């Protein structure tokens, strides 16, 4: 079953490679996505036991990330059909293949318990994402791709070194190098502190680059800004979640060691705060709404890091926020893709009055904005407030206070960009691009919005149980 999770997308990629017709090829995506979703559902409802070697196990954390990935992917896949239909001028073979290969790699990230394998899978996603960012084939997108590729490669290289340090620390401890999570956790107390410390730092920086924590986030605005909205959603919802899972794994090891976790939490708090501060600074007066979304992603990655750094009750919030952020970002990226199509521009001096020209996309974008900034009744509110309140309940009110202050600044920055763009009168002189809202380009983000609305009111029991189990794995209160 778990093998199918990885093989079916790969097979899909092969099929996409074989289909010659540009118009029909994207149909592979929803087909694969639906199967993937179905398999995921079955896996989540009755999780299989760990594999004999302990390499493959869908533990609660993996399940949460898998849920994020598959949900985002499924909706993006349907969206892709509608989107690529408007982009017939360009071959979508590489896009379809790349997306599916990424899905396979992301699936592997979630199910593996071997940190080396996890690294390989994550690096694979990095590589396969590059051509997707270059979909638009212009000078800007090549620049974005280059920066993305080099920065992420460097980062993931550092993570590899960290991984090797970790393996070596086990080698030093008991002459048997292993990167299996279970073994690592079981023996974490015996690990050499110096090696573990170095390993934690290298992996934090490495995976942090992939995840986009400031100041390692520099590739994000460029890549998110130049990639199609569809790819942006996958990057922000899928890839970030996978990178976060990698950091969670490191967190688990540090936690089990008992000593390293204090530093690791502090480092996460520091990077998290730096991230939301960067986001606050860069969102102000941001004229490019896609770059703004990228900084919003930096912000939310920062929130996740802070929540991990806080520990305790915030862990539940962090895990929940992962899902919520992925979906909320999905709404924003997909609808922003539509807006971009309509106006053929992504700067706010041209894009105005979206609600009048594209009521659905504009409305979705606005709702996504409200959701992503943590307003009820959408679920990011629940997760963010879990984090904030647990900061206050733990008596760390300076952290909570500054956290809120930055969130407020970010809200201002975002509102100053989003609201004039969505409201207001549309420009008259703009030429018609032939784009109009239709079911396939509006439906998926709408479904995402409904999901976060639903999660904000009544998260299903199985999800809550899963999140709680995940939080327990991270040392949260049962």
């Amino acid at each position: 079953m778990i093998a199918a999770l990885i093989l079916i997308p790969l097979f899909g990629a092969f099929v996409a490679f074989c289909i010659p017709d540009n118009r029909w090829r994207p149909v592979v995506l929803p087909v694969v996505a639906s199967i993937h979703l179905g398999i995921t559902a079955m896996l989540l409802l009755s999780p299989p036991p760990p594999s004999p070697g302990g390499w493959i196990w869908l533990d609660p954390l993996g399940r949460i990330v898998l849920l994020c990935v598959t949900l985002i992917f499924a909706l993006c896949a349907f969206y892709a059909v509608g989107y690529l239909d408007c982009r017939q001028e360009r071959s979508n073979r590489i896009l379809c293949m790349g997306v599916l290969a990424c899905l396979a790699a992301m699936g592997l990230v979630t199910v593996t318990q071997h940190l080396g394998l996890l690294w390989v899978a994550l690096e694979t996603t990095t590589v396969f994402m590059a051509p997707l960012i270059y979909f638009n084939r212009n000078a800007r997108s090549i620049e974005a791709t280059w920066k993305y590729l080099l920065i992420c490669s460097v980062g993931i290289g550092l993570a590899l070194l960290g991984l090797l340090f970790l393996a070596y620390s086990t080698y030093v401890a008991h002459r048997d190098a292993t990167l299996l999570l279970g073994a690592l956790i079981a023996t974490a107390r015996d690990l050499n502190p110096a090696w573990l410390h170095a390993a934690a730092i290298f992996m934090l920086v490495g995976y942090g680059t992939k995840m986009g924590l400031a100041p390692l986030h520099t590739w994000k605005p460029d890549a998110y800004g130049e990639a199609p909205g569809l790819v942006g959603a996958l990057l922000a919802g899928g890839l970030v979640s996978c990178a976060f899972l990698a950091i969670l794994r490191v967190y688990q090891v540090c936690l089990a060691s008992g000593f390293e976790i204090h530093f690791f939490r502090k480092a996460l708090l520091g990077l998290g705060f730096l991230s939301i501060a960067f986001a606050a600074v860069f969102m102000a007066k941001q004229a490019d709404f896609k770059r703004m979304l990228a900084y919003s992603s930096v912000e939310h990655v920062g929130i996740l890091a802070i929540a991990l750094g806080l520990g305790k009750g915030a862990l539940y919030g962090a895990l929940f926020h992962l899902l919520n952020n992925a979906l909320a970002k999905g709404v924003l990226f997909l609808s922003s893709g539509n807006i971009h199509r309509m106006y053929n521009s992504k700067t706010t001096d041209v894009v105005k009055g979206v609600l009048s020209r594209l009521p659905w996309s504009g409305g979705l974008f606005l709702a996504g904005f409200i959701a992503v900034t943590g307003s009820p009744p959408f679920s990011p509110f629940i997760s963010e407030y879990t984090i904030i309140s647990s900061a206050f309940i733990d008596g760390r009110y300076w952290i909570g206070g500054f956290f809120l202050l930055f969130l407020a600044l970010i809200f201002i920055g975002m509102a100053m960009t989003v609201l004039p763009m969505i409201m207001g009168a549309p420009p008259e002189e703009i030429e018609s691009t032939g784009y109009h809202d239709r079911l396939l380009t509006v439906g998926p983000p709408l479904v995402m919005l409904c999901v976060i609305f639903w999660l904000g009111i009544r998260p299903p029991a199985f999800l809550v149980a899963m999140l709680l189990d995940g939080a327990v794995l991270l040392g949260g209160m049962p």
Partner: protein
Amino acid sequence: MSFPKGVIGNPVFQLFQKTGSPIESFGDDPLFARAHRRPLNADPFRYKPGVTSRQVKRRVAVAINNCEISVDISFDSTYLILASAFIMAVSGVPCILAGAVAGQRIAMLLTMLASIAGEYAAVSILFFNASTTAYSVELPQPFGEAAFTVDNLSLLFLLPLYLVVFCAAIYSPAYWPARKKRGATRLTIFTGLFAASMIAVTIARNGVLFLMAWEVMAISAYFLLTADQQNQETERSGRVYLIATHFGTMALLIMFALLCAITGTFDFPPRCSLALASPYSTAIILAALFGFGGKAGLMPMHFWLPGAHAGAPSHISAMMSGLMLKMGIYGILRVLTFFNLLPPWVGWTFLILGAWSAVGGIAVAAAQRDLKRLLACSSIENVGIIFTGIGMSLVGMQIHSQLLIICGLTGAFIHVINHSLFKSLLFMGSGVIIHGAGTREIDLLGGVARRMPVASALFLAGTIAICGFPPLNGFIGELYLYAGAIQDGISNPLPLTAVVAPLLALVGGVAAITFVKLYGIVFLGQPRSDRGAGSHEAPLQMTVPIMILAFACLFFGLYPVALVRLVSPAVISTAALSAETFDMVSSVVPLAPVMLANGLLILLGLFTGYLYLLKLKKEPCEKNSTWGCGYPARTPRMQYTGTSFSGLIVSQLGTFVSSSKVSPDMHGDLLPAKASFAYEATETVLNQILTPLFRWTGWGFSYLRRIQHGQLQVYILYIIATLFTLMLWRGR
């Protein structure tokens, strides 16, 4: 957000469960009562880790069976209120399903129905001691379960709410017909949500539940007030509003988190359960003051208010000003009741902020040129008066003066109800003017009364009421405040609170200027432009709600006993006094003679008027033009304008509001071009503090933004730098 999701027999009804005592009415049948009580307390939906879906399903089935027995629940008042909120919340749904035109009608009917039901429930609790029950609803995971409960304080805010919502519902389809105007669907959907969320705010008994309702309220208000979205000005003020309300919510997030840190749960602590000494109590009160005060429009957090109210559709302005601002007041009262003792500075802070808002608000109002901005600024004033009253009572608690407590709270609470009534009346009236004349600019209007006699009479009633003149209701609330202040002047060795009386007098005086200006310039005289001339009377659907409100103003003015009866339970429970004490102390303001004097005033007025009319009938009346003091070529544009009318007082109150000249640009090709010139009222907080602050911050940020300057090599340097920093961090 969770609203009551259905009626009896609907499985979703299981979201709610009774936790309160069973209703007395079937107490004489022990068997039934027991059968009734047990299953309902059996908590069908509380999440327990490990409950599989099958178990849950069985529990649902059990619960449905329970529902079928418990038909009588529908007569419970709390249930009725919840149901009304639910109906309002979904009232916009037909708009999506059945189209905007039909949907608007259906929504109107549904909302009216729900308001009547809700008002009935509220009145039956208040006057007939109908039973109330706690309904609990499950919140998302870490926040547990939360209750909806109605108490006296909630009722105080619910009573005007239902009335105003009822009126707004009638008003809406005529003012913003889906057939003619864009955005009617959005307006309808969010109006229902807005009303429902306000109901939820008043009855939520859990921090998170409250916050959810609060934010739904704030955000639906945003969508409502930007209904005219293509208007640049509206968009901007909507943005200011959204940012302001978000900041307020941030403060509330902190506040509820701190409360939770003290009590260990997000449920509201019971009344007077928090000691002053408990940690964070100062922070909690300050956060509440910031969050709730900002929503109420207390100075200096009022800056969002004028623009937001001005740009909104009129019935929305009515609901925002009449109801939403009150939610801020409700919130702060609710938080204050948690504490058994308050620090001395609280009362004085309230008093000073209230007085500042009252004077400042009306000063800003006097300077306005926009009809609805003026009304909005006057809301700041009224909120200031309410806060002054609350502050007075808090000071009273400090010095153990029951009279001050009761007069302050009674005055404030009466003003809460009164302001809801007359401010809604005025906003809806202004909607009639906009509908008829198509402009909000006071100085372009004039002579509207000749074309809209009905509306003008109703508007006059609102004007008199808001100025606090007898015989209308506005007077009653102020009377209590004056009585409290003067009584303090009598009995207190150091009567600082007494200063409230002259301050209120000043505020009343400026309010009179403002509203004479408003009424006189807009309705009377001759039209100052074509707009004013082209006005016409509004349809009945728009005037009837105003009539209802005007009637309420008159009724409460002539029969203030009812008003006091409405607020006394809230006063008694908020101040933790006995009913006897209330009756005894509140008799310092005897209502019977006031009623008598009011009656005399009306009789005398009617009598004199009757004689005068008789006389006019008998004598031939001559029509002529107004005496122009010898100048023959008068034009309507020579009439006194609103700006000049208030110029004198604005020049005297320069601290609060300044009037800046918008200088004309006279450059032409050869000769100076045609230019216009205007006075613009500038607001200190928004224009002189916040806007520069934002500009400077943006300026500072633009330096910081060079960090992301495009050079890949530097980006990689960041990575190394981070690595090194982290390596060295522990070394230190």
